[in-house]
């Protein structure tokens, strides 16, 4: 007997739906989880993915990718490649492992939700493969990160990060709980595969892959490209969902995209911006963060949503201005608050690096140069203590990132604004107008308490830096520090010091 060709039977199995008699459709696909909203139930029958896959093909393809990913890893285990990597690049990988490994696991839960409550059989099938993909990503990322624990205990945070109360995972939990865990599956499909994956991470993975090869980290590049090819397949769940939603409820589609785009952009400013513009060795920087965002995220994403008949998000001007400022302020905050990180942040502000930054971001010296000069002068005066934190910054109630986004006043000066909102007897503070507005519009969403909310509520004891670090689960062997102060301060030795927090002055005060 001959076997049927895949093309002859695939269409029978990819889309299996039937009419329920014992219970009705609402019982099987409850509105709270399936979220059809204004879209007629029958409209979902037209859901169709572009790239179809069957289970045998899936297994064969994945086996090949697994074999090649681990083969490269095994070969590199016997080399000294890791020892020769730039510390800045190692920081990028630690940040990625800790920030991403268990997010992939959260994505497993998101995909499983679509696999159960997706409103079309083909969608549920695609999501089933999607959750296998994400499980693989969680495993491979954790395994690669685990490999380096013996060389550097900071890699232990590959697995540990999301089990701590560090401010970074709190911020990411807030974002991803709202994006993956709590939404109905229609919103989820637009937020996770469509906006976050297609709009951001798939492209970021390509960029990180290229940066990794340039930096000499073949292992990381190999792992990332192996993951990216999975992401590209299951992220196509977003497209057909978007088509149907736009046809019947375009206002909702626009809002879901706006909200998840903004949240993703805020997280990317903190995770990708410093890695591209400060941690990657100067000679290996292919693009600045802004250039990357403009070319890969903005152009392609805007074309995509406009193809669906939607508009640029309402906050677009604010977002575009933020490309010049957000990640620089966040980088300074990450560096200043380096004891709270599980990586070693390079300041990356030597003279050459500053010239590059000024070339790419014409306002850089004006907005950030003087502040870094203060840090540099203190370090050159052997007063590193003055560059360490003594309390917490204010964290935005929406994105949980420090409120450090300078904007230009009409008189030309740059200031960080307080975007506050009084509601329910409490005053909330936000880093940007858009964060405030999104929080307000969807204030019934899952919103975790920020770290500073917990601090002010007395959850952190003792109420000092040591207590904060302990609450975060940060141990001395993992605590972040600058890997090489001299690398960026030696250019400035001997110059007259301004803004110095002199140790003698401090002695007088105490």
């Amino acid at each position: 007997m001959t076997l049927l060709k895949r093309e002859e039977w695939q269409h029978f199995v990819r889309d299996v739906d039937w009419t329920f008699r014992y219970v009705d459709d609402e019982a099987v696909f409850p509105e709270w989880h399936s979220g059809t909203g204004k879209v007629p139930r029958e409209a979902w029958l037209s859901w169709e993915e572009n790239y179809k896959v069957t289970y045998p093909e899936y297994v064969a393809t994945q086996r090949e990718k697994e074999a090649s990913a681990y083969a490269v890893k095994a070969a590199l285990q016997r080399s000294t490649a890791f020892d020769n990597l730039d510390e800045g690049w190692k920081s990028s990988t630690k940040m990625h492992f800790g920030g991403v490994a268990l997010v992939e696991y959260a994505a497993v839960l998101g995909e499983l939700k679509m696999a159960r409550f997706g409103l079309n059989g083909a969608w549920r099938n695609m999501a089933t493969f999607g959750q296998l993909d994400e499980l693989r990503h969680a495993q491979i990322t954790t395994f690669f990160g685990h490999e380096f624990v013996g060389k550097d205990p900071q890699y232990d945070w590959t697995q540990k990060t999301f089990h701590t109360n560090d401010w970074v995972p709190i911020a990411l939990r807030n974002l991803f709980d709202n994006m993956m865990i709590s939404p109905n599956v229609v919103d989820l499909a637009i937020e996770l595969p469509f906006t976050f994956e297609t709009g951001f991470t798939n492209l970021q993975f390509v960029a990180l892959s290229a940066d990794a090869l340039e930096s000499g980290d073949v292992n990381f590049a190999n792992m990332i490209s192996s993951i990216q090819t999975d992401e590209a397949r299951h992220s196509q769940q977003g497209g057909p969902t978007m088509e149907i939603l736009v046809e019947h409820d375009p206002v909702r589609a626009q809002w879901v995209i706006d909200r998840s785009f903004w949240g993703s952009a805020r997280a990317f400013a903190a995770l990708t911006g410093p890695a591209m513009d400060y941690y990657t060795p100067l000679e290996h920087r292919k693009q600045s963060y802004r250039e990357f965002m403009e070319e890969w995220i903005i152009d392609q994403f805007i074309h995509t949503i406009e193809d669906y008949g939607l508009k640029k998000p309402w906050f677009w001007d604010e977002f575009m201005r933020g490309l010049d400022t957000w990640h620089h302020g966040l980088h300074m905050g990450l560096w200043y608050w380096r004891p709270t990180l599980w990586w070693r942040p390079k300041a990356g502000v030597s003279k050459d690096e500053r010239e590059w930054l000024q070339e790419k971001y014409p306002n850089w010296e004006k907005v950030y140069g003087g502040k870094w000069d203060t840090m540099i002068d203190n370090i050159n005066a052997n007063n590193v203590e003055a560059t360490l934190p003594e309390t917490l910054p204010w964290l935005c109630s929406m994105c949980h990132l420090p409120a450090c986004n300078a904007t230009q006043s009409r008189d030309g000066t740059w200031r960080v604004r307080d975007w506050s909102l009084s509601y329910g007897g409490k005053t909330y503070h936000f880093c940007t107008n858009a964060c405030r507005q999104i929080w307000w519009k969807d204030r019934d969403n899952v919103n975790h308490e920020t770290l500073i909310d917990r601090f002010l509520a007395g959850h952190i004891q003792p109420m000092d830096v040591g207590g904060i670090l302990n609450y975060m689960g940060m141990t001395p062997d993992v605590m972040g520090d600058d890997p090489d102060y001299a690398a960026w301060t030696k250019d400035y030795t001997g110059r007259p010091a301004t803004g110095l927090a002199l140790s003698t002055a401090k002695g007088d005060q105490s």
Partner: protein
Amino acid sequence: MVAAFFEAYSRHDVETMTEMCTDNADFSYVPYEVWGKQRVLRGDGKVRTVGKVIWSGLINSFPDLFNVVHSIDANDKGDVVVMCDIGGTQQSPWGFAAPKGGRFSEPHLFIFHVDENGLIDKIKAYWNGAGINRQLGHLEVD
């Protein structure tokens, strides 16, 4: 059956409340809404999906939740009308109402339908949402 349902409710026994309903029992808490932009969740659906969530959430937010049944009227077609008071002291957020330790007690009207097997196959409830919000100290109107 309906009296037993309210006894289970008093014990905060959501599983038993659910077991007293058919698998496909309809659920409609008419005043219940949770607002987000472009996304309004209503208390409409099935007992085994929306209903259990609302009951569990309500009990979680009001650990001393109680009900006082004033009257139960029924006809031969299986329709049952219940007038009762439901109340409790708030300990966790409920909808938009932030917890301020407020206590509420408000008349509720329940309309049930019981099928030929003696199981509830429809629950519909009405109450004065504004009255509850006032008692809890949540005075926002939007």
